[in-house]
């Protein structure tokens, strides 16, 4: 074993790694030693084994690209042939290793080898990570790695893998025994093992087990530890109604019951009274429904006491007559539960020629807005449309809308009000809570405020630099939030041209957003597959929800402020608990994009509308209760019970909206060719 060789190897290694100081020190030492070695060469006894290792190590660091392929292939076959009990845990390690092998090879310029590695093993991960692979497939040079946000974040952060003690030992043993230094290095660098004693986890819940931390595990944990005041607003109308209800003397009731029970009883009575006047037909059925509903509610009443929080924003005042009508609605609300499903009124857009990008329904369902790819926003007044049914064509010619200035010459012929002003496809529209304003966001990076009373454009908000994907009015009106391709979400108030807050942090487009019921938070869903919750007052990110496997398309907040639902491109809907930041249950059922989600007004049902032409109703109370009872049982998936699937006639569902009286409105486009 030639000593010279070793020294050379060490030198080149140090040079390569840029350890200049060490190199110098090494050289100095070498020179000091050389005379000595010349004197008594027998003195320096080099252990041949060490030399061999050093040499082999250096040769590896000569970036032999075959090492990666070979190493990964061996690791893979080892993992596949391991014991069944631990197999699934060990298999989880493969994906991060694979991805990083690929990126390492790219980074070192071995494009060809990276390709072969990628193509020979991609089938293994196709099922779970198809989209990521598609993205990575395009990476063909080191510079792309730097540029691409996904690759960048992969390199920056670590994978988090839950693994049991024994599997971990097995893995380490294997890596040491086979001296696969490259693999060991990769695993050390990019994977963060959370070793748990005892039995391996079950196969089923790997969704949570392999998680990829956008900003590092610790940061997320830190963020998710922040306090959230998810309670409802103090002095909200609902509360006022409850108080009013509680004041009504109710001698028949047993006073031992909790306050909530009483309140609900009282809430129910006027509802029944009103119902009898409205439709005698239904009353019998309703009684049955309320009877069953009551039983379940007594159980949940202890849960449903939501804490009250103070608003952080100055809230706009509500006009007295509007308040009155809302109170009236709340009194007449139909109680929904798994036994009492809602009625759904469906608005179908026809003859849109593939041009409709979004649909929005006002709180009371009387107005429907559609945003089109030809930059127009059209608003239908369903109340008027209802009168016209039957002889629509002749009727439309007769009635004239006051909005002639906007509509131009042939205004009288149209059944809708046309709002023109945007210069790019309109991607989102939202009604203010009382239906007097509409906001629309467009590809031209602006947001426009329209008045439905005056039928005119009021303000054009400029601030985003790229298309604005989504805009949402806050539950109290006045404030609104927008999300954009520029990876930010912004908070605005109607009276200011500039945004009040800018929420930055997502790694990719912010595709959808939703206000929390108490207006203190907004949730945003992004193409980086995470949902974030932001504090409106401070503009800070307070929660990161990780678990989706593809782009997030829709969000909904439960009316008690406790839960959030998110729907993604694959058709998965996830329920999150805001306080803990944990996923309660993935709702599997849809086969295509979930465009829209809506909670019923008392929060017992979740409705989801999808591109697979169905509306699904899910039982929220059952699942959350289940969570409580089975909390200690780890490893069991809690699935929300799907109550009902309502297929439409080849009409993808774009929008869902529960009215204050719990009537569900849905909108979609009739598309014959899909």
């Amino acid at each position: 074993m030639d000593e010279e060789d070793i020294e050379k190897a060490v030198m080149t290694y140090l040079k390569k790694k840029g350890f200049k100081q060490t190199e110098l020190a090494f050289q100095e030492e070498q020179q000091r030693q050389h005379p000595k070695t010349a004197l008594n060469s027998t003195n320096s006894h080099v252990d041949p084994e060490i030399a061999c290792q050093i040499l082999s190590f250096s040769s590896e660091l000569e970036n032999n690209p075959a090492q990666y392929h070979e190493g990964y292939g061996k690791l893979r076959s080892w993992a596949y042939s391991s014991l069944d009990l631990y197999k699934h845990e060990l298999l989880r390690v493969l994906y991060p290793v694979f991805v990083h092998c690929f990126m390492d090879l790219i980074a070192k310029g071995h494009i060809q080898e990276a390709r072969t590695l990628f193509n020979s093993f991609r089938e293994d991960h196709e099922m779970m990570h198809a989209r990521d692979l598609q993205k990575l497939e395009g990476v063909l040079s080191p510079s792309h790695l730097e540029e691409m946000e996904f690759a960048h974040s992969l390199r920056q952060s670590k994978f988090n893998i839950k693994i049991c003690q024994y599997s971990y030992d097995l893995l380490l043993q294997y890596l040491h025994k086979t001296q696969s230094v490259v693999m060991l290095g990769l695993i050390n660098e990019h994977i963060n093992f959370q070793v748990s004693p005892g039995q391996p986890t079950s196969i089923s819940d790997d969704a949570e087990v392999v998680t990829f931390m956008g900003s590092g595990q610790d940061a997320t944990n830190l963020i998710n530890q922040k306090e959230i005041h998810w309670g409802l607003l103090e002095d909200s109308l609902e509360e006022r109604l409850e108080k009013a209800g509680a004041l009504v003397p109710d001698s028949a009731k047993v006073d031992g019951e909790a306050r909530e029970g009483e309140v609900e009883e009282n809430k129910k009575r006027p509802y029944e009274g009103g119902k009898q006047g409205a439709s005698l037909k239904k009353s019998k059925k309703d009684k049955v429904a309320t009877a069953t509903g009551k039983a379940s509610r007594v159980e949940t009443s202890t849960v449903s006491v939501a804490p009250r929080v103070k608003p952080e924003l100055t809230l706009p005042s509500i006009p007295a007559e509007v308040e009155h009508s809302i109170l009236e609605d709340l009194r007449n609300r139909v109680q929904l539960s798994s036994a009492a499903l809602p009625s759904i009124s469906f608005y179908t857009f026809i003859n849109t020629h593939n041009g409709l990008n979004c649909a929005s329904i006002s709180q009371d369902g009387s107005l429907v807005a559609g945003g089109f790819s030809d930059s127009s926003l059209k608003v239908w007044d369903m109340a008027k449309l209802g009168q016209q049914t039957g002889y629509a064509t002749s009727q439309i010619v007769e009635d004239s809308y006051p909005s002639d200035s906007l509509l131009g010459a042939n205004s009288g012929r149209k059944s809708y009000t046309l709002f023109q002003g945007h210069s790019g496809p309109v991607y989102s529209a939202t009604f203010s809570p009382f239906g007097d304003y509409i906001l629309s966001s467009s590809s031209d990076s602006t947001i426009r405020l329209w008045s439905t009373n005056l039928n005119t454009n009021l303000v054009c908000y400029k601030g985003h630099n790229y298309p604005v994907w989504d805009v949402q009015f806050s539950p109290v009106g006045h404030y609104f939030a927008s999300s954009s391709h520029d990876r930010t979400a912004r908070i605005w108030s109607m009276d200011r041209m500039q945004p009040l807050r800018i929420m930055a942090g997502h790694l990719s487009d912010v595709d959808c957003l939703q206000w929390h019921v108490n207006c203190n938070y907004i949730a945003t869903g992004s193409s980086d597959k995470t949902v974030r919750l932001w504090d409106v007052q401070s503009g800070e990110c307070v929660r990161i929800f990780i678990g989706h496997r593809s782009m997030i398309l829709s969000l909904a907040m439960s009316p008690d402020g406790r839960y959030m639902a998110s729907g993604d491109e694959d058709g998965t809907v996830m329920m999150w608990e805001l306080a803990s930041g944990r996923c309660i249950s993935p709702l599997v059922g849809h086969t295509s994009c979930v465009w829209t989600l809506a909670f019923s007004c008392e929060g017992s049902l979740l409705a989801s509308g999808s591109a697979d032409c169905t509306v699904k109703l899910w039982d929220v109370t059952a699942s959350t209760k289940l969570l409580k009872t089975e909390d200690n049982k780890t490893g069991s998936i809690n699935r929300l019970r799907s109550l009902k699937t309502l297929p439409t006639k080849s009409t993808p569902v774009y929008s869902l909206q529960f009215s204050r009286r719990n009537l569900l409105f849905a909108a979609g486009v009739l598309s014959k060719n899909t």
Partner: protein
Amino acid sequence: MSIVPKETIEVTAQSIGINNLSPDAALALAPDVEYRLREIMQEAIKCMRHSKRNLLTTEDVDSALRLRNVEPIYGFASGSGDPLRFRRALGHRDLFYVDDKDVDFKDVIEAPLPKAPLDCSVVCHWLAIEGVQPAIPENAPVEVIRAPSETKLPEQKEDGLPVDIRLPVKHVLSRELQLYFDKITELVVSRSDSVLFKEALASLATDSGLHPLVPYFTCFIADEVSHGLSNFPLLFALMRLVWSLLQNPHIHIEPYLHQLMPSVVTCLVAKRLGNRLADNHWELRDFTATVVASICKRFSHVYNNLQTRLTKTLLHAFLDPKRAITQHYGAIQGLAALGPNVVRLLVVPNLETYLRLLEPEMLLEKQKNEMKRHEAWRVYGALLSAAGQSIYDRLKMFPSMPSPPASTVWKTNFRIIHSCSANLLEEQPPAEKIGNDGALVPLSNNSSDMETDKDPAALGDSSAGRSSPKDIRESHSERRQKRDQLEKRILRTPALLNQAWKDDLDSGRLLLLLFELFGESIFPFIPSPEMAFFL
């Protein structure tokens, strides 16, 4: 290695005038081009998702390019409904070009304006009422037969969730539908003459939510027909029920046709329908014939062998001399309803032999039984009508009339013929009625009157325009003489007829044959111009 090879870069470089691109540059550019392409596609997919579509369009790519501050590619708009297509160049495996047609300016300018696209609008309906989907045309059709969900059960058990086990009920009927079914069947069985039944039939023919009931109705019909062959009102009600179901545009009756057809055909060619003399089974057969014809018309493209099987059955009944004369009648009516072509091809060739068999039945001397004779005349009438329809249809196709005003005459003639044939058809039932009355009256009074009824005097008042057996017999002999005369005339004008027949010898022959068989009674079916020729 990658999607974009370096040759592509070289070709592209050449196409924009760079001839001396170094191979290294091409090699370096290729992966970058691929990366950029993928980047654009990623953005385009985002745009597609935000337009809530599952189909990537050129507009999405354009907006993705705009997002990246690249000028969009013009000329690839897909909005016109006819998307651009790439075509493979002949002789090359992997060379494609855009199929861009040359358009003549003149054509574009002279072409009529395209139809204005319909304006977009919103329609409203109930997707669900308290969680239940109403069966209205706006909603997706409810799955009639739901397969029991075997696969789901073990999965749910694993979760330890409260499993709601669905019983393997194959077919769920709502209470309303059950009530509806009960009501309809009750009406059919007991009160088929009420006004309510008529309304029920109208509802069956129009209501959209009845599809789940169709299997029950077919079973009901099959059962009742097989058990109630002697109950005439029931049979008629059943056939009207079938007719209404066929009329309903929201019902897919095809899968149940095989169950339905036997009962319907039974009502057409059964030996006895009803057990009382008053039962007008002729009318039932006529009605059933129209039902059969409409089924054939509607579903012959779905079931290719439907019509052939049906005609085979009917022809069999028609040609079997052992069958009852009523069966023959049904078969003839059924064949006639299937259209003149069927008659021409299947009935007419057998006419002569059949009439030879029928003739003795019709003659007073040979057939003493009034009923039988009457039936035979009935069949004769049906045959005449069927043959007449077919010859009329045949002649209608005869376009070439030598005289110029023929076309105008034609139209009026057409109407006349129609009314003629209508008259004739109308004439039949009264004759029938008389016959029936004749049969009835004696029955109710005393049976000995039957004999007197046979007197021509007794029927003399009805002979005006009607065909009492005797009258016809007399006229028959007269006709024979006339025909002889006519034939002489025909012989005298062979040239004229030859000219007419040159166009269609067959129809001429057919005409002659029919004339030979039926005599003058075929004339009302023949348009007068032809008649003129003929005479």
